[in-house]
């Protein structure tokens, strides 16, 4: 106990001061006001946390500052939106991804045999350029004229919509021709991405396993295409609650797969060269948003309607009543608070507890915690750290994407929705201490509270104890509060609240 005091004196003093100040401020507020402001803060904190936890784990374990993390948040939101409201887009595009991924995985085995036959740096470079050109050409041929705009145009929850499904979809024969070309395009990409005999590379799966996985994926793609019409009607006929759950799952999986793709293609070849990794993820944060715009359109979608669980137009007196009434808001000390935001808070808490338990109680968690401190020693114990890296990347990316899905009914869905969340998550991670999971949680709560109370005081003014005048702030102050807090924390403890001194 004494040593905790000695090591964190400055932090503890400032924390105590902050609590006193905070107490003084809410003193002058009615409980119903500050409780609802606090709940708003927790809502924000929960969304920040879903982005920040992955950032923090990824940085802690692999020293990678992933600037593309916000892209995964946006990706999750869009995939969630499509699953929830426009399944025809998914049913027509998923086969493309399945077949492409299958072809790439299969071709990695070809690459294993291909590269050793190319001798000399010059020939290898020529082969690389040739393969890149072939891949680009085949991809263009395969995707040229794909009716992505028509597939995207939909009216809320109705089958078809702005463009009817029958008109938006391409005939099956055309789609199969595209799939064939995509399978061909996957070959040069797979050869380019095939692991060489470089050090500590994750080894390829045995051929039969790859064949089984890729065969399954390709088959699934074809089946999806064959049942796309009935599939759309079936999905839209599901209850919105089930569809929302599906949206959460699909969004999270899409994010995790996106994370794996980023890690394998961009991060893995450059471990130990963090500047290159940083520049690559920074570039991807721009290109990724462009890709999302190209795929889903640039225009902003209105907030996704929350599932019926939070949809009845009424106000419940208590949580118990809400369970039977499913009202969209709930009475908190006489003020209405949206129940969907309570759901956001609950998801944040559940993720915190689940990941925390995983880190504390499982062997994987033990390896991650050890790897954060010394990944070389973990390697020396006979553990394939690179595989753990990929796993953690997938986990962090999946969480960010899940954040995107649950943010969709709250924020709306638009290409720029991730930027502010990524920035806030970065700041939260810096405040909490890079690589500390608890730190990420504490940092996001501080930022969420600062933002919510900042906004409140901008709107309502602030009356400090012993002062009669009400001070009004400008909106800029509320926004700047985040950076002010970061500056303050860094001045007192440069490694962040829970950061380790190096």
């Amino acid at each position, binding site marked *: 106990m004494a040593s905790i005091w000695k090591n964190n004196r400055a932090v503890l003093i400032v924390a105590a001061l902050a609590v006193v100040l905070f107490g003084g401020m809410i003193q002058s507020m009615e409980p119903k006001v500050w409780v609802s402001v606090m709940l708003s803060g927790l809502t924000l904190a929960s969304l920040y946390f879903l982005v920040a936890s992955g950032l923090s784990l990824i940085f802690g374990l692999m020293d990678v500052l992933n600037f593309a993390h916000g892209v995964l948040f946006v990706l999750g939101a869009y995939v969630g939106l499509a699953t929830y409201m426009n399944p025809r887009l998914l049913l027509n595009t998923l086969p493309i991804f399945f077949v492409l991924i299958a072809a790439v995985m299969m071709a990695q085995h070809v690459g294993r045999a291909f590269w050793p036959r190319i001798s000399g740096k010059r020939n290898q470079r020529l082969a690389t350029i040739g393969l890149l050109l072939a891949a680009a050409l085949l991809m263009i041929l395969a995707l040229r004229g794909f009716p992505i705009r028509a597939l995207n145009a939909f009216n809320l929850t109705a089958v078809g919509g702005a463009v009817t499904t029958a008109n938006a979809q391409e005939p099956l024969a055309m789609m199969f021709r595209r799939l064939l070309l995509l399978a061909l395009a996957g070959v040069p990409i797979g050869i380019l991405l095939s692991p060489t*005999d470089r*050090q*500590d*590379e994750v080894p390829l799966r045995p051929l039969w396993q790859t064949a089984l996985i890729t065969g399954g994926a390709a088959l699934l793609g074809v089946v999806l295409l064959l049942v796309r019409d009935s599939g759309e009607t079936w999905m839209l006929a599901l209850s919105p609650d089930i569809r929302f759950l599906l949206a959460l799952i699909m969004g999270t999986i899409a994010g995790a797969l996106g994370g794996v793709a980023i890690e394998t293609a961009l991060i893995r070849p450059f471990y130990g060269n963090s500047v290159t990794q940083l520049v690559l993820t920074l570039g991807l944060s721009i290109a990724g948003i462009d890709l999302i715009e190209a795929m889903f359109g640039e225009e902003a979608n209105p907030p996704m309607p929350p599932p019926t669980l939070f949809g009845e137009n009424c106000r419940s007196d208590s949580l118990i009543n809400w369970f039977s009434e499913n009202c969209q808001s709930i009475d908190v000390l006489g003020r209405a608070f949206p129940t969907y935001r309570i759901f956001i808070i609950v998801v944040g808490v559940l993720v915190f507890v689940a990941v925390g338990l995983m880190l504390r109680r499982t*062997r994987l968690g*033990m*390896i991650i*915690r*050890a790897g*954060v*401190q*010394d990944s*070389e*020693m*973990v*390697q*020396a*114990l*006979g*553990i*394939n*750290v690179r595989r753990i890296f990929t796993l953690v990347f997938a986990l962090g990316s999946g969480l960010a994407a899940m954040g995107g899905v649950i943010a969709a009914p709250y924020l709306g869905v638009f290409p720029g929705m991730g930027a502010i969340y990524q920035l806030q998550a970065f700041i939260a991670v810096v405040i909490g201490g890079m690589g500390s999971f608890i730190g990420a949680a504490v940092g996001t709560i501080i930022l969420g509270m600062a933002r919510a109370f900042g906004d409140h005081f901008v709107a309502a003014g602030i009356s400090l104890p012993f002062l009669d005048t009400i001070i009004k702030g400008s909106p800029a102050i509320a926004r700047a509060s985040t950076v002010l807090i970061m500056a303050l924390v860094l001045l007192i403890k440069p490694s962040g609240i829970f950061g380790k001194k190096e």
Partner: protein
Amino acid sequence: MTTTQKNVLEVRDIQTFIGQFHILDGVSVDVPDGSITVLLGRNGAGKTTTLKSILGLTPPRAGAVIFKGKEIQGQPAYRTAAKGIGYVPEHRAIFRDLSVEENLRIAERKAGDLARREEFIFGLFPDLKRLIKLPGGNLSGGQQQMLAVARALVPDNELLLIDEPSEGLAPVVIEQMMEAIRRLSEHTTVLLVEQNFIMASRLADRYTIIETGQSVKSGMMADLVDDEATIQRYLGAA
């Protein structure tokens, strides 16, 4: 050498670069089964790099590392280690946030490794049993060194690479550590790096001297102890 003992490890003329620096320029070491072999040499001669090159943490660019009759150079460290090589690095590399128990458990390669070895490990280092729930970072230097050695004993390792086990330890603790290494060497082969010549000479059966990245002399420890000229030349005043 005329011994008929089989070598559990043979290092053949390895060349290792770290970045642009040519650290090892021809190191060869034989480690006979069941022996304690020590790498001697001045600071910066390349002893630690030799251990890391064997494991694959700094992979050699040329030469061969032969473990149990098979070449293992060029493989990632996790695969080399899993073949049965334990590593006790310089500065111990204890996982500070993990408890002592977790520090041991993470080294398991099969479920139950720790349970099988517990008795042996706590027999060597009775202190650890008392500290089992503490975070590794709260241990003293000597206790951390014991934990680092204990960690390497959890799985079935046929070879332990131990780097400077006496570094920064009090004389009493050094005695304890020597006794522990002597006892564990009845079960596993040990390749040791040790600056403390007195400790090295009392523990080791064989030695290899490394001088500026080259192995310059190997032989039986018993012969080296009387060879004042060699000691003076390669190790400075002993």
